């Protein structure tokens, strides 16, 4: 299993860094777990909507297990759709909330991720360190509590309809001039076509906020649609170095396929949701936020991502719009290839634009208007980028899809607006404290 160890090593190295000082700092536990979940998501190759769902439930479990560490934090039972039960600690007993958080993360992950030996290893390291400094009965009780919360979240997750979408037939995509069809180079069938049917976590319904429609489809060379495609085409033909860097920086395609004859392999990248959780983590580390605050922010960002993807996916498969590469190959240049690999699902609207805007709203709410630098992509060979504020980053992420040749400008702008509304709604409705 030598070659599988890379993610494991990353995760354990993160853990070891803080362990040098004894036990992990409480907030570090949260950061390390989110980092580990991101790693496993990359290893498992989950698509972006499913990745966001995993982040949402793992962070929810950890929040519900650990929120008691800071007085005043409320349960989200009754606030999230269908979230009716979650165990409470025995008020008369002592707990170590770090232990509970680790146990909850581990338990929740065990039913959501596949390569759970990675997260199990992290749990082992954390438990090993905490065992040395926490009384055994407190440790055992806290761990049991965390597991109980994790199981409650597992049950909650199971009720959201996702598992059933896995049992459904593949989506039979209709065929028409404006219809999406499988795109080069993989010509893969559509990814997660039923994710729009999964229960939203904060939104009242998947279509609570209207999405601006795409430009009216036309094959006519003088039409707006043709012009929109030409814009994508022309940008790709006159690409500046900056545009190229922006496109690659925000690519966030979890699975990129490389062809070398018979040798076909996938490059993994962080998913769009993972990217934004990582931005959040960088700010939180900078600000040295507490464990519960970290859980609040991570879970809220995750909810915005999850609902953003769900709402976007619902729209994607309703609009079922043709990707630029197909349109351009059919009508403009049959040999044109976009800078980025086109992800395997319909165009409208841009998922990245949607969830980016939603996540930025949450971060704006917590941290306000502040400049920051993002080094998430250093791992993937791209430089650190600096942004004036979260919304500026979101706007750049949004337009990056046009630079990358995988979206029309309308799909990005509409997604951006849609995402803002979703993010604002999450901020406004999910109450962590009174």
């Amino acid at each position, binding site marked *: 299993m030598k*070659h599988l160890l890379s993610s494991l090593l990353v995760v354990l190295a993160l853990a070891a860094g803080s362990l040098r000082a004894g036990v992990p700092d409480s907030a570090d536990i949260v950061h390390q777990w989110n980092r580990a979940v991101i790693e496993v998501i*990359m290893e*498992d190759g989950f698509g972006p909507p499913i990745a966001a769902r995993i982040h949402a439930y793992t962070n929810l479990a950890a929040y519900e297990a650990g929120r008691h560490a800071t007085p005043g934090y409320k349960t989200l039972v009754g606030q999230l759709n269908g979230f009716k039960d979650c165990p409470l600690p025995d008020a008369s007993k002592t707990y170590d909330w770090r232990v509970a958080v680790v146990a909850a993360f581990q338990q929740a992950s065990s039913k959501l991720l596949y390569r759970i030996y990675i997260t199990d290893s992290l749990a082992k390291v954390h438990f090993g360190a905490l065992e040395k400094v926490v009384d055994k009965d407190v440790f055992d009780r806290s761990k049991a509590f965390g597991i109980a919360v994790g199981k409650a979240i597992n049950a909650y997750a199971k009720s959201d309809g996702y598992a059933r979408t896995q049992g459904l037939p593949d989506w039979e995509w209709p065929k028409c001039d404006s219809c999406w069809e*499988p795109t080069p180079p*993989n010509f893969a069938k559509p990814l997660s076509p039923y994710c729009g049917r999964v229960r939203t976590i904060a939104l009242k319904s998947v279509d609570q906020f209207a999405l601006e429609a795409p430009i009216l489809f036309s094959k006519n060379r003088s039409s707006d649609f043709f012009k929109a495609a030409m814009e994508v085409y022309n940008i790709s033909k006159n690409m500046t170095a900056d545009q190229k860097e922006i496109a690659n920086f925000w690519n966030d395609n979890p699975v990129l396929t490389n062809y070398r004859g018979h*040798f076909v392999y*996938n*490059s993994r990248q962080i998913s769009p949701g993972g990217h934004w959780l990582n931005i959040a983590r960088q700010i939180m580390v900078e600000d040295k936020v507490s464990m519960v605050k970290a859980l609040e922010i991570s879970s809220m960002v995750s909810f915005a991502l999850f609902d953003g993807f769900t709402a976007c996916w619902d729209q994607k498969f309703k609009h079922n719009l043709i990707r630029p590469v197909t349109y351009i190959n059919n009508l403009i240049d049959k040999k044109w290839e976009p800078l980025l690999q086109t992800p395997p699902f319909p165009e409208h609207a841009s998922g990245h634009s949607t969830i980016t805007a939603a996540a930025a709203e949450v971060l704006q709410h917590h941290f306000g208007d502040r400049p920051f630098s993002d080094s998430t992509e250093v791992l993937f060979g791209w430089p650190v980028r600096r942004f004036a504020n979260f919304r500026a980053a979101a706007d750049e992420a949004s337009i990056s899809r046009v630079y990358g040749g995988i979206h029309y400008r309308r799909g990005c702008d509409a997604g951006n607006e849609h995402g803002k509304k979703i993010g604002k709604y999450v901020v406004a409705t999910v109450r962590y404290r009174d």
Partner: protein
Amino acid sequence: MTPPVRVVLTVLFTTCGMAMAQEFGRIPESVSGVRFTNRIVETDSFNIYTDFYAYNGGGVAVGDLNNDGLPDIVFTATQGHERLYINQGDFRFEDASERAGLTNTAIACGALIADLDGDGFRDLYICRRYKPNSYYHNNGDGTFTDLGASTGLGLLMPTTMAVPIDYDRDGDLDLYVVTNGDPRREGYLNPGYCDRLFRNDGGNRWTDVTDQAGIKDTGYGLSAIVGDVNDDGWPDIYVANDFEARDILYINDGKGRFDDAATRSLQHMSQFSMGSEMADMNNDGLLDIISVDMLPRTHDRRMTQSSGMSIYGPFFDSTQRIMNTLQLNRGNGMFSNIAYLAGIAATDWSWSVLAADVDHDGLQDLFITNGTKRDMTDQDYAYSVTTKNTPKARQYLNMPGVRLPNFLFRNRDGYHFTDVAQRSGMGDSAVSNGAAMADLDGDGDVDFIINNTDTVAFIYRNDLKDSGNTALSLRLVGTSGNRDAIGARATVYADGKRFVREVQPVRGYQSTSTTDLHIGLGRIRVIDSVVVRWPDGTQSSHTGISPGRNLVTLTRESPRPWAPAAAERPLLRSVSSVLPAVHRENFYDDFKRERLLPYRNSQRGPGIAAGDVNGDGLHDIILTGSKFNASMLYLQRTDGSFEAAPSGFEQEADAEDVDVALLDIDRDGDLDALFVSGGNEFDGDEAELADRLYRNNGKGRFTLVPNAVPNGLQSGSCIATADYDRDGDVDVFIGGMTVPGEFPRIPRSYLLRNDKGTLVDVTSTAASALSNVGMNTSAAWADYDRDGDADLVVVGKWMTPRLFRNDRGTFVDVTSAVGLGGFQGWWTSVAAADIDADGDQDIVCGNLGENCRYPASPEAPIEIVCADFDDNGSLDPIMTYDVDGRRKPVRTRMTLTQHMPTMQRKFPLHTQYAAATVNDLIPEGFPDSVLRLRATTFTSGVFRNNGGTFVFEALPIEAQFAPVYGILADDVDGDGRTDLLLAGNSKGADGDILGYDAGIGCMLRSIGGGAFAAVPPATSGWSLPETCRRIVRIPWRNALLYVVAVNSGRPRLFTKTDIRQ
């Protein structure tokens, strides 16, 4: 009672199994002096990431370069110059590379030895990838001069091999150069270069005639093999292409042009074709074509090394299959790929394939090299390669590699092969690429020379023990421009047999073998004659030749003109144009709903029925329509043609009608129509699944009788009618085929009694066991016990043929009692007929056939266990097979996890999945709801009725090439015996196999006693490459018409060319 003929075949197998007395001995390099190793040293600029053909390896060329009578050897190298070894005799060689001037170190691929300029000294032509090819002209003094630039043969494009061919029969050698593409490509739109054809104009003047000859192949060609496949005297070319571009079969039209016949002659071909070969494997006088691919042989390798592509992309081509192909030449322009039946379909990364009768038993064996320096299709490796932790510069060094043994397949009977590499001494494990054969020591048998990657070249001496087999070694001497007579065909006639060989030195992969012919003759002591067809199309006959170890030289003396024999007049002639019908199957992808289905359930139709519906005395035809297409009525006109006519079926176009029967349900003297609807497109409660009865107004106009068929909504397969209760009207059995979307649940089947024109479901009272009899495909009524009433035979998939005895109107399952138990198959058709003329009804049953990837036997059955194991709302049918005594999943991890995603948690690695048994997949044990299915035989055959009990006899091998969906028993040749017409094929296999479609139909002539012999299609005229369904026979123009229903195509109609009275 006559004895079964099957015994003959059994005996044949047994005796053959004991042969193969010969062994090969490897000559150590310390003895031979041949120390050549194609060592491939990877660098940061040359590795699998930078050049995906980095490990394609080198070739071997054998030929007498110094005219001393001994074959010399040239090896090509990926890095480093070519190596020439001069044969000193007695397996000792001298490295003469430097003296010869072979110092070019550019990547070399194929090596050709042939006297290209006809000056009496064989030249050397080397194909290269990034530098100009080298045309080393033999100066006759041990040195060579590269004339590439001056002759134009120094082609600068990626080339694999050059093949000599006198395509215009003008007496000199022309050159076909197989080109490739850029193996440094990254994008997905990358056509290769067009192959080249150079015409030899004498005096080393060469003209590129690629365009005017019609050569258009731009695939990534890895080999080409020349031979006269259609026996018209003109050499044809098979080009084996890697990747998307399919293989090409260039038929030489004799006028300087080549036409690609691949798509009309081959049902399918290898996808990642590498080496290729042409040889007559079954001694029928016709050259068969072999192309090798990269399908892994063992379960472990198949589960960890797999390659494929999206079926939704523009490059997907269902005629390309990842498997070796053995294209059996059927003699009428058609080929049948019988690689699964032959047992040679899977030999991993297969480079060279060479045919030779190594044991002189009279049948040509197959040698296949294999291996790759690195397993670039290793799924765990591919998974582990990520750029997320900064690109690892030396990633290529971590790619695993494995050395596997080569294969020596002994030809047992012309159709079945056994790998004997280990016990024959050729089982060394290495990465072997090009290979050549030649009689290096002049002892009358072929020795092998193999170019290995990173291992010293192998020389295997054939130590043929005195097994009692004889052979003939022939050297053909042609004319000055082509002294080695390349392209000549020798046919040895002896003992009523014929042995056909062609002088084609370029065989296999990147290599040149001997121009001498070594023809094993088995026990034959006397040769009647040797007939040589020379490259110019003339022919000479030679007698007085005896088998022996000495080389016999034949020269072109007093040749006579030769012309191909006139085509024979077949027994049946196709008259399909009189019926202007076409069946269009609706596109439905069963696997999108049921990803683990072993086959599609949506391509069952069309059904067919014939009868006089309008009372004009002429038989008319109904063909059922697929979803969205109404079933159609075709009325016969007096001139024998048919025309579509308004029928009354038009409104019910949405149903997928799969069978139809014409029967006088209301006894008003005309034929009413009963349709059974099926398919997999509908859910179990949709009205389109309702079976339908239409009443005839006597004039061929039909009216739907609402709710006349009292069975529920089930997906049916077949109708069988008989007056089982002997009340004077016709009763009906309707078979259920599947529960849509819920394979493998058992659908319901029905017995419907005709009560004065009303169909009454009497299944539960008269035949309760019938209701869940199985996944039916076909049924027949037959009075097997001769008690005067009709008994019922039902066949289907995953079930044994079941017989229900009619006991005064109630039915008793007598399957086991009459000897039908234990034959669980994928039965697709059944017909009752007295095929042995003993007065009782025998049962002919069509099965999947033996040309299938996973054979089934009672000892090693194919099984399915099924439940919703992962609790996500869909059934999970897990098909298993026997792997070394353990039950393992047939489908790959990728397919399984698409349907059961959480299996990824259980098996993060492909190696773990490869090791898993079905119990590891479901470690918690099977729930009570588990469904179990089993198949123990895929052989089509006859259950012969011996006084009320049945004995199974397999149909001849030609009937086993493909599934049989249509059976018609009739005295076709007019000799008074009952013959069988068979038709079939399926394009509905799973996503790995894609199709069971090697069949072209089969006419089996009765030879008495219930035995059959296949009639060659050129003789019978019965050639049906289509996806065929049922066959009906009707009177037609004072003769008979056989009508074959065809899925996704036009029905095929045949009538007898000449009826013997």
